[in-house]
């Protein structure tokens, strides 16, 4: 069993690389305005869109204008999605007659989808009408992913450009992300999914008579189109409550395979985009390998833990897992989804073994940088690279610099903010939840597992992941509001300081190549992996000890 699992994983990684490399180069070309093979089709559409938007694609702005446009755009999104949910009961395409969404749920959902988290405190098929799912969730899935990619590309430009103030045009980056990348991929992927059984219709829910004579109401809907972008844009918000464990979202092993590849591929490709735009592909590989190393370390531990099964019951841990996926796929999906901030699940994380869950939590606690969310994952990893190069620079007696740009107090302030703010917010809210009835009344499991439910929720929010220990009843005003704040902090405490860093770096000169410390070698990779693990461990060791680690020890000494 182990051998075939190993082979399957190895093949999976190889295929991921084969897909990510050309995609990375493609994206580099798109965002630097070069021609690609799809240009003949898409370029006219692009020009048309700029005309009706009123956007001049040749005009670039400094980081302040860029950030302002981004913030306004996101704010509009939150408001529109919020209102849409509140009035869905009087809008068309609501065959089940679902009522207006409760205000705190609606607010949480609006923030959640705009922040690319897609935390769903609700069950999709019982709360959201088809129209809301399409106009609200599907559209926002595209847009929030595009925002993330735009931020990443702009951050890269900070390193590439020298002595200029302009860092890009937000509307151009946004549009290109959507029409050159997300939309074409989604169209192809959604049709593939339909071919394997993922539904795409506007029918009312089907009333079936089961063989044993009971009535079974089967929910329907335009699932495939949403599923595709949910996956590709590392969004994670599913149509149904059971997300990608639901047979209508993920019917077969082959769809599962391509769903995991799907939410990894853009984030895995971005390091190569980075290398291409920097004109130093070894650099891109270095970042990719750093991420891959962390991914494989975590995956090994998670698989080892889950394959042990449940010693109390003496059985494989199939609680909360689908037969067609088994242990391996569920762990790979879960580990990948928490590494990339996707948040889709094909198994219930609340039922995983504690050490497996600890790895999933840790992926989110370190800021979703192991490939990470589309765009922001690369940015997060590069922030860790800045921290690493700061220390390395000091240790070799040189003013710290990275990829040719000097690191000065301003960059350090911003980098530190990105690193500590999400951690602070999840620790604070988690403490609040675990010491008040407001928070504790939502727990589904007692003891240390309950604490894990809380920790997981806020790690997921602050990391913009969106998956959950679904036993936690998060559809309360307390959790809806605290998680909304956590998601906002997690998203914007990453994006805004990163854009200011990009703006500051772009204005600097570049140091000559010969004097730079090589950041594409194994020493750099080991250092950055160590920094990521150590900083995360030092921050979260205490809570992990009294949560999943304690649970693990209790399980393995159960009955003694």
């Amino acid at each position: 069993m182990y051998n075939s699992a190993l082979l399957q994983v190895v093949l999976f990684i190889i295929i991921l690389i084969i897909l990510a490399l050309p995609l990375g180069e493609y994206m580099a070309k798109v965002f630097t305005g070069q021609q690609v093979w799809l240009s003949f089709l898409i370029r006219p559409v692009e020009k048309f869109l700029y005309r009706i938007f009123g956007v001049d694609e040749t005009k670039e702005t400094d980081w302040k204008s860029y950030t302002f446009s981004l913030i306004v755009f996101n704010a509009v999104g939150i408001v529109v999605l919020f209102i849409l949910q509140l009035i869905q009961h009087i809008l068309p395409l609501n065959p089940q007659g679902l009522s207006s969404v409760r205000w705190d749920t609606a607010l949480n959902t609006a923030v959640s989808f705009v922040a690319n988290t897609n935390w769903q405190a609700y069950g999709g098929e019982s709360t959201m009408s088809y129209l809301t799912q399409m106009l609200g969730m599907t559209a926002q899935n595209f847009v929030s992913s595009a925002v993330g990619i735009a931020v990443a590309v702009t951050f890269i430009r900070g390193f590439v450009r020298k002595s200029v103030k302009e860092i890009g045009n937000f509307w151009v980056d946004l549009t290109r992300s959507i029409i050159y990348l997300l939309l074409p991929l989604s169209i192809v992927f959604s049709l593939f999914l339909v071919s394997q059984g993922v539904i795409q219709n506007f029918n009312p829910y089907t009333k079936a008579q089961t063989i044993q004579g009971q009535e079974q109401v089967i929910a329907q809907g335009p699932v495939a189109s949403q599923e595709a972008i949910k996956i590709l844009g590392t969004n994670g918000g599913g149509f149904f409550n059971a997300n990608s464990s639901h047979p209508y979202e993920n019917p077969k092993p082959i769809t599962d395979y391509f769903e995991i590849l799907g939410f990894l591929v853009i984030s895995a490709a971005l390091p190569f985009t980075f290398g291409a735009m920097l004109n130093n592909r070894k650099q891109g590989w270095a970042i990719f390998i750093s991420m891959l190393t962390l991914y494989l370390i975590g995956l090994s531990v998670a698989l080892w833990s889950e394959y042990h099964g449940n010693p109390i019951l003496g059985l494989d841990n199939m609680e909360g897992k689908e037969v067609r996926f088994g242990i391996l796929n569920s762990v790979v999906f879960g580990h990948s989804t928490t590494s990339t901030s996707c948040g889709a699940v094909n198994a219930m994380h609340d039922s995983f073994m504690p050490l497996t869950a600890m790895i999933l939590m840790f992926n989110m606690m370190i800021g979703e940088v192991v490939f990470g969310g589309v765009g922001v994952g690369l940015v997060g990893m590069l922030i860790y690279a800045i921290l690493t190069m700061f220390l390395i620079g000091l240790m070799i007696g040189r003013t710290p610099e990275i990829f040719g740009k000097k690191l000065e107090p301003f960059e350090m302030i911003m980098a530190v903010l990105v690193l500590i703010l999400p951690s602070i917010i999840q620790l604070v809210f988690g403490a609040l939840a675990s010491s008040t009835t407001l928070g504790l009344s939502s727990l589904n499991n007692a003891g240390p597992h309950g604490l894990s439910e809380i920790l997981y929720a806020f790690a997921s929010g602050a990391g913009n992941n969106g998956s959950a220990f679904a036993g936690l009843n998060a559809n309360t005003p307390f959790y809806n509001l605290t998680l909304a704040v956590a998601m906002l902090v997690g998203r914007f405490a990453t994006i805004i300081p990163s854009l200011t860093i990009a703006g500051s770096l772009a204005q600097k000169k570049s140091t000559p190549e010969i004097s730079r410390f090589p950041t594409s070698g194994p020493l750099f990779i080991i250092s950055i992996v160590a920094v990521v693990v150590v900083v995360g461990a030092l921050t979260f060791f205490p809570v992990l000890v009294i949560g999943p680690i304690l649970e693990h020890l209790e399980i393995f000494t159960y009955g003694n």
Partner: protein
Amino acid sequence: METKKTIWQPKFIVRAVYDSFIKLNPLNMYRNPVMFAVEIGSILTALITVYNIIQGHPFGFNLQISLWLWFTVLFANFAEALAEGKGKAQAESLKQARSDIIAQKLLPNGDIESIPALALRKGDIALASDNHIIPSDGEIIEGVALVDESAITGESAPVVREFGGDKTGVTGGTKVLSGNIKIKITVNPGETFLDQMVGMIESAKRQKTPNEKALEILLVGLTVLFFVVVVTLNFYAGYVNVKISIPILVALLVCLMPTTIGGLLPAIGIAGMDRLMSRNVIALSGRAVEAAGDVNIVLLDKTGTITLGNRIATEFIPAPGVEEKQLARAAMLSSLADETPEGRSVVILAKEKLRMRGRDITAPEGSKFISFSAETRMSGVDINDRQIRKGATDAIKDFVKPYNKQFPKEVGYAVDRVGGEGGTPLVVCENGNVLGVVRLKDVLKHGIRERLSQLKNIGITSVMITGDNPTTAAAIAAEAGVSDFIAQARPETKLERIRKFQSEGYMVAMIGDGTNDAPALAQADVAVAMNAGTQAAREAANMVDLDSTPTKLLDIVEIGKQILITRGALTTFSVANDVAKYFAIIPALFAVQYPILNTLNVMRLSSPQSAILSAVIFNAIIIPFLIPLSLKGVQCKQDSPMSLLIRNLFIYGLGGLILPFIGIKLIDMIIH
């Protein structure tokens, strides 16, 4: 500076202990955020201990924690005080010397007033002659003197300082051995270079360099993060029914905070300045010292920096049929009244060749000296009806034309040969006879070749700048071993070149002494002025080399790097320590309620109380243990960056990970 003594003298240590208590003043502490937080924690735990005592509760544990927290702060203060102490001691001893000096101030009406040296202000004129102590920093505006600078350089070999040229600078506290000079004072009391340097050492006045600020931001960020971790832990613990007392929370926080690097950070920077002072470099900008670690290119003047500054006659090449001694005598006679160093060296060479001694030379009766002029480009002497001239080849050619004698072609060859080898030929003639050629040569400063190759080894490109013609310049460049040179340079060339290099992203260092170097010095990232140089140069620079050796830059680069490396190493060490401290404290907090968590107690510490205390004690005493390293700096030698990094990662990263496990276990065994 005469104190190359060790810092570990009893009087320093006593003074530092005293200072560490004085520094506890919060108004002083808040400049070091990390240690300020520790101080607040210490006050808090002390208050709680007092409260315990009043209430009659057991207070022993809290008392110990509080005491060790206070020790942590004191140890950090001690480190800083010790580093400051050395520099201040040197400065104080010099100030002492100066406060006794009486200066001879020249009043506008010509009178001379005796006033204390400390009363001299900028712009005053002071006189100094044999055995006078120079009262303050200034420039010679008249006269020449032989100066003993051992008071500040430690070198007893006297140096010449004079008006005109580049050796006009004098420093207060040095002694005139012989000579007579008028000095224009260039600083107000308390603003001398020495005072400025002391300002960089005294922590109250110290300006933090950008690098230091950036590191501090990181440390503050970590502190804030750990503060949140500890405070929220209190609530999480509530969930698992564990109550944690405030002193223990404070102890955990202090252990997690990067107190090791936080406490030693000021000492590292100050000690770097001290080390510079002991190499006789006065740094006026901490930022420049750290930038020195990054220098790629150094610009060096030829004259005075690479070469001795004045050309020296090294050879007499007589014309056919002329004896060397005859040439020598004629050359000597024509140079006796010559004030220039070149002229004097001709005399010296002639004396050597003629085996005469100094006192035997006098100009014969009836000599009339012809001084050098830019038009004639000759100088010489008329003695009765003998006309002796020496000068540029074509000038001499014109001079002997009326005599209708052939200009010997051998002399022509000699002239070409001297020029081609990078020297300057002077042709000597008497009446119509061309007697021969005197070769003037630039002489390299002693040891320059070795030092320049050392620069090359650590990756710094040296560029020589000179006004000479390309052939001469090339020859000197090759002889000295510079990587590159710029010939026929105008005064603006240096500044232009520095700007160009900087725009390409290079870090440029410049060493200079002349007034025309000032703009370039002001532009360079690292600007070193020779102390012997002009005031303009010294003011434009950000470092002054008291020994006036051009390759002092090597020391500056090394110290600059050392400061950064020491900071980086101790930061890594500090953070790596946290892992072991967690493994000591966390099981201690929860294992009472959940005994299975004892599996995490990898050090097998005896009790929760001793575990926490051991961690706190280790955290405190690691600071004094690392003081010698902070003051001396991490050794960096001339390693490649890669090997340096690997070595430091092993020692401070891996070492920092493992050492506290051993240390805490040992302390635990001792206190149990």
